[in-house]
């Protein structure tokens, strides 16, 4: 059985310790562990985290393999320190049947860079009209527990209610892309001072907030669990905070880009900043950081949305919405949450591993770094500083808003069940 000794790692940011991996499990955590027979990784004060879990990734396969595939997307995930990703259902064909979700799941297992847990569509073809076979997807080899029409909102209140009720039978959760469709017709960016000036169609905060308000009330009424995707406004935070105080079973995620970037960047008309929901204001960014720190927002999820160059190298209105995020997420969280003092590394482990694994019921992920647990681990050089260079991305796409921007921290090693997927910053 292979043995790896990680020597002197700050486990969850604590005092340096040794972590011994044997086979697929953590064998021991302690001081001065014997290196006999083991490959030694000198952590040298780097931070060791449980393998990160992303509840919101677009892998594009099947259908848009020119932007990303399960292979390239999971390589990007491993580069970013992830050991499990949840793949969104808006592929072609849509992941609305057991067949499609099993295919995506199987590709993840074959490639072996990280576990791929498919998300099933809530409605057939993401059309919002008819429930997809949620039970069949749950019972398939993929074992789907999260359902989402992400990219589109389940805007019909009755369909949303039925979905919330139906998935209770197998402990599922509906992840809502909160976007009132009529209020966002022609929307190109956050509605406010900047959109007024630039003459770009506005995406008002209330289009997100009104759906979240409706859905938490629905979840309360039928006693179900609802998850809010990529929450982006200060008002949304208030609604989720209120819902949690009432005991409603709601969880919420924020993306790294909504923790750092604002709609002021749209003044460049550079479509790399075009994303849905749109970049909001400084006030929203600060509210989101506070909410992630105090637990109102449960997790960070990337909304990794790869697009080929030609879909972004054009005028704003014609460009696709979305940004890649798997390979920069932890750096952005370090800058916005850790270096601002809002979260410690244990808090990061909670928001980027323990909690997302819990919401998605990911088996073997989001576990403590202790003996007997699966060896899904990430080692981070938090002292590193460097400019983001998309040329080095493992993702097939390069649509990052951080090109040339200096971000802290770098994932140097990732282990999936004891097998290294990333070594010294290079994919294994």
């Amino acid at each position, binding site marked *: 059985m292979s043995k790896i000794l990680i020597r002197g790692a700050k486990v969850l940011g604590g005092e340096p310790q040794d972590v011994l991996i044997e086979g697929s499990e953590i064998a021991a955590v302690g001081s001065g562990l014997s290196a006999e027979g083991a490959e030694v990784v000198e952590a040298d004060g780097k931070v060791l985290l449980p393998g990160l879990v992303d509840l919101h990734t677009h892998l594009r396969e099947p259908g848009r393999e020119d932007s990303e595939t399960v292979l390239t997307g999971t390589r990007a995930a491993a580069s970013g320190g992830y050991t499990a990703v949840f793949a969104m259902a808006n592929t072609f064909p849509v992941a609305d049947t057991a067949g499609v979700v099993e295919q995506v799941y199987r590709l993840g297992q074959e490639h072996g860079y990280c576990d791929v847990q498919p998300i099933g569509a809530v409605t057939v073809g993401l059309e919002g009209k008819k429930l997809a076979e949620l039970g069949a997807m749950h019972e398939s080899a993929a074992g789907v527990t999260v359902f989402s029409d992400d990219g589109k909102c389940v805007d019909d209140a009755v369909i949303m209610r039925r979905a919330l009720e139906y998935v209770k039978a197998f402990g599922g959760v509906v992840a809502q892309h909160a976007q009132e469709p009529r209020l966002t017709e022609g929307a190109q960016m956050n509605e406010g001072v900047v959109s007024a000036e630039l003459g*770009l169609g506005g995406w008002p905060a209330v289009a997100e907030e009104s759906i979240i308000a409706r859905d938490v009330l629905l979840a309360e009424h039928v006693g179900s669990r609802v998850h809010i995707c990529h929450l982006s406004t200060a008002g949304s935070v208030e609604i989720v905070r209120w819902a949690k105080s009432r005991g409603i079973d709601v969880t919420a995620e924020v993306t790294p880009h909504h923790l750092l970037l604002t709609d002021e960047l749209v003044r460049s008309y550079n479509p790399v900043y075009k994303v849905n929901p749109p970049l909001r204001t400084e006030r929203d960014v600060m509210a989101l950081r506070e909410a992630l720190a105090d637990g109102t927002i449960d997790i960070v999820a990337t909304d990794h949305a790869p697009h080929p160059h030609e879909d972004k190298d054009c005028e704003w*209105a014609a460009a696709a919405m979305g940004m890649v995020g798997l390979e920069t997420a932890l750096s952005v969280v370090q800058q916005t949450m850790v270096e601002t003092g809002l979260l410690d590394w244990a808090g990061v482990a909670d928001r980027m591993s323990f909690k997302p694994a819990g919401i998605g019921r990911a088996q073997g992920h989001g576990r403590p770094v202790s003996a007997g647990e699966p060896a899904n681990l990430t080692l981070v050089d938090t002292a590193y500083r460097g400019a983001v260079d998309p040329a080095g991305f493992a993702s097939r796409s390069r649509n990052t808003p951080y090109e040339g921007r200096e971000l802290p921290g770098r994932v140097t090693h990732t282990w999936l069940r004891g097998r290294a997927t990333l070594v010294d910053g290079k994919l294994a």
Partner: protein
Amino acid sequence: MQRHLISAADLTRDDAVLILDTAEEMARVADRPIKKLPTLRGRTVVNLFFEDSTRTRISFEAAEKRLSADVINFTAKGSSVSKGESLKDTAQTLEAMGVDAVVIRHGASGAPYRLATSGWIDAAVINAGDGTHQHPTQALLDAFTMRRRLVGRDAGLGQDLAGKRITLVGDILHSRVARSNVDLLHTLGAEVTLVAPPTLVPVGVESWPCEVSYDLDSTLSKSDAVMLLRVQRERMNAAFFPTEREYSRRYGLDGDRMAKMPEHAIVMHPGPMVRGMEITAEVADSERCTAIEQVANGVSIRMAVLYLLLGGNEPAVTHTRTEEK
């Protein structure tokens, strides 16, 4: 002057006054028997129109031809926004043909900015209207018309519009003319008031350097110029206002309302006018309405802009008179 003209907000007061003064010189050319200067001889200008606008295209074309530029008209209607390469590819094709300036009209806000800043081409870019963003030469010709009427043709040289009170009425939300005018008129020292139903005022307008009112009648007596903006009938179906009649009653300019304006005040319209809804025939055809003058002034303004961006540093008319000898 900068190399491109993308937004009225990019112009300083001195840039704007220089353009207006140069346009006065250009206007004199129109009074000559041969309305042509050799200033841009050997230069190639492309009118790249992704969106229909016969009026604006003809105005630019007339300006380019009066300056002796070689003119290429490229109409790409329909191929515009469906796939973005069309803009980049088209631009690079024109660049390869040695174009010196691109006059671009595009349905997408920001398309001229992308063209000027993405490194796709080296030519000067002149925005002839982009989406609901900007239409800077329209704002310049409006300011030119105001200066002539409110300050004076000769007295206006070197002057801005300090203290003039300008009211813009109509669909502010979807109007690039409104955005350009607010920026330029503010730069030139005028006080601007926007008047519209609240549905046609953008969220975020509070950051603009102007006042906003929902009541036309209360602003008329305080206006040196009232500019009506085009209201598309389709807006009614999208519930921006209940009926054409109601819009007309509250925001249309008729003879009674015009009578409330100071005697010297003018009525402006960028055209085409929707008679009966925005403006009654009585007002449109009155001496005080400058709509036709605005069209004529548009050619002078566009000559001035093309000359200043492409022609060199010497004053336009001195330069050309030398060549005429």
